[in-house]
């Protein structure tokens, strides 16, 4: 007697269940609004106040621009640690199980990277402002404002329980992508234009 064919257990159902919006995503509304406010504030400040052309110098560098280029590069290095540690935490690196200190590494590398970007951003906004005079500068200005908006959303979202699982990877990925864009439109451009120097 022929046995009746059973569908494989991994695909048990062909019924289409309509998926509504994830109610947990509502938790993101307030952080997202706060992030928008931060990005908008930075952009408006950078656009409306007259750039001074000067800021506090740091000893050992030839100009404020070189300071920023090197600080941004250090921030990128910590950003790469962020990317690597988050991949480990989410188990995306085959063969590597998350060590107990990985969370601490992720938090502290993130804090250091964030502080460094704040130092650079203050100088940018105060001395140079939100520029629109070349496509590179526009991209850099927009990405810079968005970066701090995304960081704000991510930090505030961390404080809320029950967020959908995609929120942190999305926000972290956005922040990292923006950081890379910011670096390529400033430090990379600077080093390729003027050469490596202090």
């Amino acid at each position, binding site marked *: 007697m022929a046995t009746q064919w059973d569908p494989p257990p991994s695909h048990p159902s062909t019924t289409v269940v309509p998926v509504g919006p994830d109610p947990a995503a509502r938790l993101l509304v307030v952080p997202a609004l706060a992030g928008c406010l931060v990005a908008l504030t930075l952009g408006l400040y950078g656009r409306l*106040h007259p750039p001074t052309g*000067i800021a*506090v*110098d740091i000893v050992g560098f030839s100009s404020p621009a070189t300071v920023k280029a090197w600080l941004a590069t250090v921030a990128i290095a910590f950003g790469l640690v962020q990317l690597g540690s988050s991949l480990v935490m989410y188990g995306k690196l085959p063969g590597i199980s998350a060590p107990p200190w990985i969370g601490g590494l992720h938090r502290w590398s993130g804090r250091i990277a964030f502080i460094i970007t704040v130092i650079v951003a*203050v100088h940018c906004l*105060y001395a140079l402002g939100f520029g629109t005079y070349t496509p590179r500068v526009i991209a850099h200005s927009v990405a810079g404002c968005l970066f701090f908006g995304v960081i704000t959303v991510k930090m505030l979202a961390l404080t809320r329980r029950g967020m959908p699982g995609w929120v942190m990877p999305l926000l972290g990925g956005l922040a990292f992508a923006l950081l890379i864009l910011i670096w390529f439109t400033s430090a990379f451009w600077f080093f390729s234009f*003027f*050469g490596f120097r202090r």
Partner: protein
Amino acid sequence: MKIAIATPVITLIVGAALAASFLFTDMQVTSVKKGDLAAATAVAPGSAAQPTAAASTGASAGAGGSPSASASASASGFVIPPHANYVGQVQGDLGSVAIVVHDTFAVAYFCNGSTQEAWFKGTPHDGNLSMTGKGNATLTASYALGHARGTVVVDGISHVFSIIAVHKPSGLFQSIAVVRGATIKAGWIVLANGTQVGSMEPNELAANPTSQAAPKLDVSSLTAQYEGTTIAVTPIDGETGSGF
């Protein structure tokens, strides 16, 4: 658990506080430099004998750590250095440009290391320059401490640039010499990374002088070898006033 929830917010607050303190420090430095300008302009209305007074004011007040102690402020709020050298490549890398500002006078030079070059002279106004050179060449730029940007048009080709302030040995160099009866006029731009680009007119006084690549500039001895003759080269330096 409560502390673990709050830490990201603490991170944000620390970042905001740091930004605020940097901003405050920056504003202090800027106001010091603007004060310097007020003192400098009040003391030295174009007189060469007065700069010692202005310089001493700058030295006493310029505790902000910037090399340019007596920067000035324009009506728009930019802080304008009275003496500065800016060099850099134009966008697209079709040449380099140098702008040298010394008090109320500015000299600029564009060259591509071969047949295109132009010298410009002009007067700065509030950190803005609008200069003209031979053959309808024009250069417009705005500059502030550390940075200048603008557009230069030479031989009908427009180049956009965004260049940085440099100190010796980078900068602008010029040589005007008579070699075998012909007056040559050469210019070199030494970029921040030490590379140089130079063009020259082998017969500047000709009706339609042509340009060619300049011989190599020896930055240490300020000479160049042209057709077996050693020619002297003058730095055009806004910080020392050399070449003005």
